[in-house]
């Protein structure tokens, strides 16, 4: 195993905990808005690490650009749909959960 492969694999492995925490957040957090936080951010960072790790190991330029395109699309898609869902939830008058004093 070369040093480049090692770094790349390390990056890919680093992405997994973010995905896991996204799922845990989806199950643990109390309302729509907070769950959106977990879903949008954790998953994007996780995918970012996986894409980065694969890019480091990749040998063809075409693949690198394609991977970056995938990451960019997911980034745009999740930021947009996060906003759409939050906006629709506010319009449906769903109250954000707050910590009781």
């Amino acid at each position: 195993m070369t040093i480049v492969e090692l770094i790349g694999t390390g990056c890919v492995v680093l992405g997994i905990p973010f995905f896991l925490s996204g799922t845990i957040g989806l199950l643990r957090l109390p309302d729509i808005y907070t769950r959106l936080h977990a879903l949008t951010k954790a998953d994007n960072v996780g995918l970012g690490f996986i894409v980065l790790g694969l890019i480091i190991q990749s040998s063809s330029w075409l693949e690198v650009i394609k991977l970056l395109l995938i990451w960019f699309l997911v980034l745009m898609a999740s930021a947009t749909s996060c906003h759409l869902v939050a906006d629709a939830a506010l319009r449906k008058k769903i109250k954000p959960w707050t910590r009781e004093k």
Partner: protein
Amino acid sequence: MNTFYVSLALILLLSVAAGLLRILRGPTAADRMMAAQLFGTCGVAILLLLARGFDALIVEDVALVFALLAALSTVAFVRRAWTGKITPKGRRHDHR
């Protein structure tokens, strides 16, 4: 074939399966839809890992389609199923 990457994909698959509980539990429609969105992002990651694990570059194209279409169903959900009739003409100033 690289078994290590397949095992990482397995972990992600299990996490997706755990996310299914949110679809079953709800409580609101948006919560269920968000779990489907989780499927989209995790699905892309799983496909990328499988593409590397089995040395099949074409699988990355499937990941690309996943990335495009996960957003489509969320938009359809918000615009159609959840909030009823909201046309772009009604919400924003007209462009035409």
